[in-house]
């Protein structure tokens, strides 16, 4: 193998220029003293060079004025040496390449080979290529065992699950820890939003972490890795280390560095994630609007026709099951009722619209500019950065602005005493997030309820002209009522019914480190994470009434505001001990404590019954007396003590043990304290057994338990207060019965891993298997409402996750100028609900429009999709009178939202100063229920609803006219179905003709997630003008969905982060982004 590679390298090798001095030598590996074959030897600052032969030997001509040679080989640290006679160059393994030092729990740097659990590092630079409004989106496909689903919502939350869902009803999101500051990925979306009703995806505070400030990310996957963090880290940790002044490689001592990077990205919608429409039939649900030649149209006199009957469009009917288009047929359409329209009081040809809904979208423009200053000296360092991020979304009037300031300082006060601090301030302001779910969402109209005769550009021009809510969907225009019935003019809606929100977020820490002796140090840290958020929603005067505000009553106009304040403080004290007890025995020990306090309070107020003065967005401007605002206040406190001991013997055997004791305010006093241990070990077997081709090999094994506390205030019952009935107070028993006897829940996990590297780390892999059981879960279990409650808090239930993770890398080609690196992540997780609660074998996580539920069922994976199914006989679908029979039960398993496996493949290439890379992201399996298809197919907007039947006639013709369809399947007696049924809106497709299961799609995808090509300019040219480095790049993200099974939408798209995945309604199309990057360092 080595020889082949060498040959390849030789063939691709570079010839060199005429010689001045000839130098020879040999390159050997520091690990084993063996020759390194194919190592590159280059005269510094030139392209002149050679590679070593099969004996590691080289010979090179060196110019007199430049005698520095650069020696490099993949997987090893490059080395510069002045040319000399008979050189012997020893190359050391590259620690960066295989991440030999990694950041672990509590920010402790550890030698990677000593760890008995899985971690995976991601370099900050790789995340910073394609700009996204959410850091998590850029992690997709980069780490094995991490399941990421981006919702596609502007500024929205992204679901991130490590090693499967563990908690039945609690938070399953990975925890982010930035320089010791924990930040959760929980969103502040309402229950109505998360169950697909209506609302906005307000995102999570994680999106305030600026990728520009990230030095590295370490992903701690299993319980053993996170045990020291305690309960909140049971779902895995994304550990982020931000850049400090010390990390700037271009800085010398006492230097000051300035760097600037700029990115402009243009986004357009991916047409494969948006509907195509049929163009043969227009507005209407059927043929019942008149007794005339065209019963699909109204026929009667209009105000201006002087009593003469004419054809006009049923504008209330947001479907396309109406009259067949015919350019010779002239009808009065919605615009005939708009005085400002050129078509006012005019009949126009009955044809499909020229400009469909796709013309509604703008090109998104994102700009991101970062300026950073850094400097260091012997005793201090600092880094300050400012990022301005502006994203104008694909929807009209949508804009996200983010300003981030980050300051990282440290100073040695004494030789053994350092203080440091990191502070991040982010102000985020968003206007016009897209609506999500079924109601109040323009995408629901485009995907489900639409008349294909409506021209979207005409809606724009009439809105621009009038400024009024001039809609195609008029209530009763013939009778003079042109107000909207279900759908506003979409432009009116975007510019008047928008939401806006802002968040001021500060997180940071202050810490000291005292090196008491060379083996004992003490670290103290105070970390703060606090934000205040304001979310304002509007319904402008003149809109379609919509469910709004407190109580979600239909109102013609309204204003609401939600003020949310959050604060978390953490106080940590750590004592570290690290000493070689003997030549071979090393002891690392740690003891510490943590005090955590969380507090959140919010107040939500809304107008009642509409706005008195249009456009005045104030609660006092309410038609009826405003309802009492909804207040919430919660606090959680956890005190913890923890310790760990790590023993290393002969750099070969390692053993770690940890113990943590938590005391939580959310548990009953008698049960509020709980201990949990972890133990892990590793063995570097290549220290004892090492064939030539193996560079490194290690096995590891661990077992860990993590305890968890209860949600706030789940111990005792309170009453809820509905709005008073006039002057009469109303109180109500709460729908959830709390439980004063809760005890901590527990996650037990074990893991085994194998890590190997070959051919001087040119190829390697890291594999893990794990098994995690979460037991005694604290959850509000759904109970029969006949108990008088909907939910009851219990300690019950067990969820098991087991899986395999694989991370592999290799360098197929390596020459002096060119290299090709491949990185592969692959993981699979099998999830099973082992038990729930006495006699209960199903837990409904959420109930959605369309009649489907997302469930946890005993013996099945968590996150099943349940609903109605076909009735089968001998494997054939049963029909009755030509129509599919559906089950009367709604608890049939029709889908599973968990993917079978995930993979990410990164290929990167460097050629001289060029760098190129692309990332393919693959998901296999998983299901999604599409309400868009369930309703949209019924409404006749998709191409599948037209065309010919088996007789060769248009299927939408009446049965008498040779139309109709025969659905495949059998009658109840087993004979094939031969009954032809009308292909009208109730039968031809959609939810009325089929059970829920017909609209469950495979969520697999293969995506070209990211691609980049960049050029680094030669240092010499730039140094003259004071530029250390300059690079220009073209980047793209979400460029191409190479494969998917879900029609007209992205299988990832959804409502946001959370436990209820696998349901789509009115999802946003995916944006393909193309950008231009500039990075310059002074």
């Amino acid at each position, binding site marked *: 193998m080595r020889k082949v590679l060498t040959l390849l390298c030789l063939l691709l090798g570079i010839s060199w220029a005429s010689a001045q001095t000839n130098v020879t030598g040999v390159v050997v590996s520091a690990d084993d003293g063996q020759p390194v074959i194919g190592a590159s030897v280059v005269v510094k600052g030139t392209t002149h060079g050679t590679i070593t032969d099969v004996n590691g030997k080289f010979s090179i001509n060196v110019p007199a004025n430049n005698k520095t040679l650069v020696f490099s080989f993949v997987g090893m640290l490059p080395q510069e040496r002045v040319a000399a006679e008979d050189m012997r160059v020893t190359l050391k393994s590259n620690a960066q390449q295989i991440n030999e030092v990694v950041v672990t729990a509590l920010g402790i740097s550890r030698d990677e080979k000593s760890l008995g659990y899985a971690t995976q590092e991601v370099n900050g630079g790789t995340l910073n290529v394609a700009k996204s409004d959410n850091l998590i989106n850029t992690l997709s496909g980069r780490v094995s065992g991490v399941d990421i689903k981006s919702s596609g919502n502007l500024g929205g939350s992204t679901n991130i699950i490590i090693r499967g869902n563990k908690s039945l009803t609690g938070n399953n999101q990975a925890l982010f820890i930035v320089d010791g500051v924990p930040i959760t990925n929980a969103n502040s979306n309402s229950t109505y939003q998360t169950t697909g009703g209506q609302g906005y995806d307000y995102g999570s505070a994680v999106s305030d972490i600026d990728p520009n400030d990230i030095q590295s990310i370490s992903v701690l996957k299993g319980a053993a890795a996170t045990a020291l963090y305690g309960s909140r880290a049971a779902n895995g940790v994304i550990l982020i280390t931000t850049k400090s002044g010390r990390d700037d490689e271009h800085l010398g001592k006492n230097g000051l560095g300035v760097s600037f990077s700029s990115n402009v990205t243009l986004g357009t919608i991916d047409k494969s994630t948006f509907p195509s429409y049929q163009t043969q039939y227009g507005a209407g649900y059927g043929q019942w*609007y008149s007794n005339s030649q065209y019963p699909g149209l109204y026929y009667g006199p209009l105000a201006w026709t002087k009593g003469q009957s004419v054809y006009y469009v049923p504008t209330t009917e947001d479907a396309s099951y109406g009259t067949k288009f015919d350019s010779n047929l002239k009808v009065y359409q919605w615009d005939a009722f708009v005085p400002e329209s050129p078509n006012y009081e005019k009949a126009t040809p009955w044809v499909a619209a020229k400009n469909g809904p796709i013309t509604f979208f703008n090109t998104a423009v994102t700009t991101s500019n970062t300026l950073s200053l850094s400097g260091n000296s012997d005793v201090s360092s600092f880094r300050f950065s400012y990022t301005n991020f502006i994203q104008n979304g694909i929807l009209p009037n949508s804009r996200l602005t983010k300003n981030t300031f980050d300051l990282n300082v440290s100073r040695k006060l004494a030789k053994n005493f350092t203080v440091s601090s990191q502070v991040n301030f982010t102000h985020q302001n968003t206007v016009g997030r897209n609506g999500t779910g079924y109601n109040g969402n323009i995408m629901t109209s485009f995907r489900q309820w639409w008349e294909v005769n409506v021209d979207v550009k005409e809606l724009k021009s009439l809105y621009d002209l009038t400024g009024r809510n001039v809609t195609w969907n008029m209530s009763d225009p013939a009778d003079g009522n042109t107000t909207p019935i279900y759908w506003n003019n979409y432009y009116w809606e975007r510019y008047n019914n928008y939401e806006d929100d802002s968040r001021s977020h500060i997180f940071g820490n202050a810490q000291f480190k005292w090196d008491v002796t060379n083996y004992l140090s003490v670290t103290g840290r105070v970390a703060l994470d606090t934000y205040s958020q304001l979310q304002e929603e509007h319904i402008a005067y003149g809109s379609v009434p919509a469910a709004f505000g407190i109580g979600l009553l239909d109102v*013609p106009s309204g204003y609401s505001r939600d003020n949310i304040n959050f604060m978390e403080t953490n106080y940590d004290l750590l004592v570290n001990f690290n000493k070689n007890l003997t030549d071979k025995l090393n002891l690392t020990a740690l003891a510490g404590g943590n005090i955590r306090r969380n507090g959140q309070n919010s107040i939500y107020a809304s107008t009642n019954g509409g706005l008195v003065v249009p456009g005045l967005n104030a609660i006092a401007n309410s038609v009826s007396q405003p309802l009492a605002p909804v207040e919430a206040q919660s606090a959680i406190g956890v005190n913890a*003590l923890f310790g760990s001991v790590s023993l290393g013997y002969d750099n070969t055997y390692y053993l770690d043990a940890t113990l943590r004791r938590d005391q939580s305010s959310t548990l009953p006093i008698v049960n509020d304290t709980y201990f949990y241990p972890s133990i892990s070990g590793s063995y570097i077997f290549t220290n004892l057994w090492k064939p030539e081709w193996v560079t490194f090999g290690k096995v590891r094994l661990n077992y860990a338990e993590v305890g968890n506390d209860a949600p706030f205030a789940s111990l005792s019952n309170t009453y809820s207060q509905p709005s008073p009935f006039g002057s009469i107070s109303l109180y109500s028993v709460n729908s959830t019965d709390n439980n004063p006897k809760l005890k901590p829940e527990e996650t037990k996990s074990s893991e085994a891993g194998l890590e190997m590297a070959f051919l001087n780390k040119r190829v390697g892999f890291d594999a893990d298997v794990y098994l995690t059981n979460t037991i005694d879960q604290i959850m509000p279990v759904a109970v029969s409402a006949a108990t008088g409650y909907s939910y009851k808090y219990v300690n019950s239930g067990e969820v098991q996750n087991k899986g395999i993770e694989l991370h592999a890398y290799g360098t197929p080609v390596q020459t002096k100028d060119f290299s090709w690196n491949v990185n592969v992540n692959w993981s699979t997780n099998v999830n099973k609900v082992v038990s729930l609660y006495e006699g209960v074998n199903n837990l409904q996580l959420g109930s959605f429009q369309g009649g489907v539920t997302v469930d946890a069922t005993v013996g099945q994976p968590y996150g099943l999709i349940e609903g109605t199914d076909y009735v089968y006989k001998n494997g054939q679908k049963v029909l009755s009178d030509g129509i599919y029979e559906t089950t009367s039960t709604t608890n049939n398993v029709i889908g599973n939202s968990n993917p079978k496996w995930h993979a990410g493949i990164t290929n990167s290439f460097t050629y001289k100063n060029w760098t190129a890379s692309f990332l393919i992201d693959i998901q296999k399996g998983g299901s999604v229920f599409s309400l868009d298809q369930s309703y949209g197919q019924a409404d006749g907007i998709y191409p599948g609803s037209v065309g010919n039947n088996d007789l060769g006639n248009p299927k939408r013709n009446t049965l008498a006219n040779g139309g109709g369809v025969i659905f495949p399947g059998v009658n109840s007696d087993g004979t094939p179905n031969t009954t032809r049924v009308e292909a009208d809106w109730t039968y031809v497709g959609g939810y009325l003709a089929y059970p829920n299961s017909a609209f469950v799609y495979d969520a697999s995808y293969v995506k070209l997630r990211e691609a980049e090509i960049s050029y680094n300019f030669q240092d010499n040219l730039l140094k003259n003008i004071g530029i250390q480095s300059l690079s220009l790049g073209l980047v793209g993200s979400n460029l191409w969905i190479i494969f998917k099974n879900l029609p007209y939408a992205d299988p990832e798209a959804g409502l946001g982060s959370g436990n209820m995945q696998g349901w789509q309604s009115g999802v946003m199309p995916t944006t393909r982004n193309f950008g231009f990057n500039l990075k310059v360092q002074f």
Partner: protein
Amino acid sequence: MKKILFILLAISAVSCSKQTLADLNKDVKNPTNVPGNTLFSNAEKNLSDQDVSLNVNHNDFDLWSQYLTETTYTDESNYNIFTRSVPDYAWTTYYRDVLENLGRSDSLIKSETTESASDIAVQKNRRAIIDIFSCYAWDQMETAWGNIPYKQALNINNVLPAYDDALTIHKDLIARVTADVAALDPSNGSFSSADLIYSGDVSKWAEFANGLLVKLAIEIADVSAESTLVNTTINNAIAGTFSSASDDAIFDYLDATPNTNPLYVDLVLSGRSDYVAANTIINAMTSLNDPRLPLYFDQNLGANTYLGGTYGQGSAFPNYSHINTAISNTPSFPHPLLTYSEIQFYLAEAAARGIVSDAAATHYNNAVTASIVSWGGSAGDAATYLAQPSVAYNAANWKTSIGTQAWISFYLRGYLGWTEWRRLDAPAMNEPPSPASGVVTFPFRYPYPSGEQTLNGANYTAAAKAIGGDLMSTKLYWDLH
């Protein structure tokens, strides 16, 4: 080193103050104790809201009674109620929002310290009224679903409540209301203004309870084994029940949201055009020259022109009669829960069945007249109407006479209209074009909520078997003819 120990000590000191830590867990925004009356008021409103709503997610009985039909989205008119989980909503409302609140109201009132004799009497009255109102709710549930959890219901410590036999429940309700009537003391007060129906008037509640007894008895009039119970109950209750429409149990809504009549929310605030009059009722009333036509329906098609959409088929909103705007546009439009007219229909039936010795025609005429007058017609209109041979009481065909007129009178009280039709099998209803799977022609019962299949599976299965299948086509034990 000493400093470290000191800091560690400090941490453990903090961790020891358990109570301080536990105090963080207090919900400071919601009460742990409230006056019992507030839960009663809430239950009254919740029941009335559920009964009157025609939101397709909550209550589809105005459709099933064929008073109305849907314009475009005809799912519910065709009995397709699963995609919206309508039975789940109703089930939860009855058990959790009505009965659990009533039960808690009772236990809170029971635990109030009472000293004076009059306090004790008021407390006793309140508890009896709670029980009467609970029985009213239980009756609606049991006549909708059949067997339901009853004895083991409303106990969170038993999350798998068994279902009880519906007739057994029904008889227990009669016994409970009979006992409540005896317990009421009209010389003392009760809830006062916290009672949103009768403002705490105990004598009115006594009349309500007697009316409810008549209703409970007549509902099982076809169950021959219970004829003695039916007979005794009705005869004992007659004297004590409503004597005129002024005694009606009416839930008066307010003008502002969220306390308006739900009809106003569903029909006006929603801005939607989902319902038109069904041809079933328009045709029936037109053929009888019913004076309530202009009171029930809008004259949107022209003066005295009424046209109903074909039941269950798509119907263009502008082409058919709408609900009278005097009803829909009145936010405070009152909703009746039990009326004099209704009781008179039951008594007419009791007379027709020979349970009471009065003249059936008298009760019948009283019932029709009271209905017309309470809808805004005059006694003269009623007399003219009743004088028509097609309307006059027909003893030979009393089920059609009473069934048709009761059904017309119960307009916008969908559940009652549907139940009366199920009992008396009159008038003839129209079969919708594409009835949902599992309904042969018409629904004769409400299917159990899908939540019960998953959350209370074994008991659900046993109950479904006991009643002859959890189908809409299953006839309940009292629906014998």
